[in-house]
């Protein structure tokens, strides 16, 4: 199993290699992809990227939680959470690529 961690820089490097823009502009475009996805989600939109996956925002209502240290009951306020559902293609490629490794 690979144990590397890629960052924005690696994505920018891939754009630089594939498209031939400057490194600086490649990095800005990667950022802009992430920003547009984030903005749409914050507006409450679902973001559906075919053959990658779907990001959607779910509303969670208030529930009672517990402080694990003190055992005290505390209300967990209503909130919006993001869920990501990988596409079939992503699931297949991740399953195939990691088969019989670690």
């Amino acid at each position, binding site marked *: *199993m*690979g*144990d*590397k*961690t*890629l*960052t*924005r820089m*690696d*994505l920018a490097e*891939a*754009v630089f290699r*594939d*498209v031939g*823009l400057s490194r600086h502009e*490649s990095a800005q*475009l*990667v950022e*802009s*992809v*992430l920003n*547009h*996805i*984030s903005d*749409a*989600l*914050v507006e409450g*939109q*679902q*973001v*559906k*990227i*075919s*053959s*990658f*996956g779907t990001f959607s*925002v779910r509303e969670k209502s208030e529930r009672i939680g517990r402080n694990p240290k003190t055992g005290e009951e505390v209300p967990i306020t209503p*909130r*919006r*959470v*993001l869920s*990501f559902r*990988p596409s079939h*293609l*992503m*699931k297949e*490629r*991740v*399953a*195939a*690529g*990691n*088969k019989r*490794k*670690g």
Partner: protein
Amino acid sequence: MIRSELIQKIADENPHLFRRDVERIVNTVFEEIIDAMARGDRVELRGFGAFSVKKREARMGRNPRTGDSVEVEEKHVPFFKTGKLLRDRLNGLA
């Protein structure tokens, strides 16, 4: 929002780029993330979130139609954890 709308937004902001290049850029970003996970690597995008691979152990499952026990092999599945900044923004905190 779907992939083509995302491409359009970025094309609108970058009138000096050909649309086919914008398509290529957007596709490269997603492709690179899948490739990394297929190698078992993790992709950490601070503020946005992190894509990683989780291992599901082999287990005994059941054929829901017949009730027979079947062996389910170990497998690896993609996982996404939302970044703190995005989580806060979703809740109007940032």
